[in-house]
């Protein structure tokens, strides 16, 4: 790094947190805010258009929409919540999945290139203010407050002497950690991924234009940037899937008689 800097003459500025907080576009409105609004417009328009004229035998477009819907409905909600109770939670799970997915994918779309979820406020809003109250409310309504607390904090089959240890741990996990880890997981993945891409792209650019022999190393940086882009694409989809999966899993666990 130092040699590179020396060779270049002028300072290489490594990308950092500041790259995630660009100056507002106008007033208080920042780029992620615009993207967020854009994302719900895209998803809403896509689904409204796809479901306006549904046919028993789907066309290509309807088939694509159905496949997406089925990921939320069958492979996440039904698997995690159970065939008996999953129906009312399908819209929530589908919204979570598509919302996170599109906002993550913004990180790859040319010109946009910013994963909205790398601002922790957005995933936190979903996990802490939506998923967290929903699964506790569902559990309390199903089992009553005491029954629910017992169900959540005392795993069946645990010997009595570990209960004093187990109850606080379970309580802490279910009522404090779950929503935070849910949000932090996707935020951290998006933040780190975007940072990695920035590092390789910016350093590649710097190497290319710095002059001298470093030009030959520049393709290596670009190669890694491209490879990491593919990796990022996988992670983006995966993180959206995990977020929805865990949300559904929390709801399922809250509703289950015994888990």
């Amino acid at each position, binding site marked *: 790094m130092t040699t590179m800097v020396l060779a270049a003459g002028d300072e290489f500025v490594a990308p950092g*947190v500041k790259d995630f907080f660009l100056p507002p576009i106008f007033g208080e409105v920042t780029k992620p805010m615009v993207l967020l609004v854009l994302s719900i417009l895209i*998803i809403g328009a896509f689904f409204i258009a796809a479901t306006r004229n*549904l046919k028993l035998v789907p066309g290509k477009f309807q088939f694509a929409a159905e496949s997406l*819907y089925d990921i939320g409905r069958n492979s996440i909600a039904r698997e995690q919540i159970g065939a008996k109770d999953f129906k009312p939670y399908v819209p929530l799970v589908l919204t979570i999945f598509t919302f996170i997915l599109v906002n993550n994918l913004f990180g790859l779309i040319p010109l946009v290139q910013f994963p909205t979820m790398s601002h*922790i*406020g957005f995933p936190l809003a*979903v996990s802490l203010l*939506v998923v967290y109250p929903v699964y506790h409310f569902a559990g309390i309504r199903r089992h009553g407050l005491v029954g629910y607390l017992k169900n959540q904090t005392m795993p069946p089959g645990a010997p009595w002497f570990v209960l004093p240890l187990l109850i606080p741990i379970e309580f802490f996990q279910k009522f404090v950690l779950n929503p935070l880890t849910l949000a932090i997981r996707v935020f951290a993945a998006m933040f780190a991924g975007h940072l990695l891409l920035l590092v390789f792209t910016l350093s590649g650019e710097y190497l290319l234009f710095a002059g001298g022999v470093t030009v030959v190393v520049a393709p290596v940086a670009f190669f890694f940037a491209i490879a990491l882009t593919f990796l990022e694409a996988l992670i983006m989809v995966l993180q959206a899937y995990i977020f929805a999966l865990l949300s559904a899993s929390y709801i399922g666990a809250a509703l289950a008689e015994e888990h």
Partner: protein
Amino acid sequence: MNTLVLAAEEGAINPVLPHTSEIILGLIAFLLLFFVIKKFVTPRFETLYAERAAKIEGGIEKAEQAQVQAQATLEEYKAQLAEARAEAARIRDDARIEGEQIISELRAKAQEESSRIVAAGQTQLETQRAQIVAELRGELGRLAIDLADRVVGESLEDEVRRRGTVDRFLSELDGTSAPAAK
């Protein structure tokens, strides 16, 4: 991480601390999208899925019904076939019995006829014989008288002539009766 903490201490932005405005906007945007999906998207898909399931189930049911019906028809045909076979066998048996009956009847009738013919022949023969015997009896009388006449007519010639006359008569008689006896 160290740099992040330093940056935060320096009054720069800490990415781990959420912005209130972003949480509020995130929540509102999410709820809006949730509303749209819950209100429009999910019900449409669920209606479609229910329709599709109903259609498929209906199709399966229809197929099952058709199969049951086909099975019933097959059974019916089999029963009918068996019935027809039994009927045919019965008819054949009847025909055989009837034929045998007819044959035996005819045989009896023929027997009767033949015995009747034989009996009639016998009666006729009997009658003819009686008639012939009666005729012969009359003839014999007449012949005897005839013979006696001749014998008397020749009168009392000699023994030899007499004997010759008798012999002549007898041979004459033989001559007429011999071809008949043959």
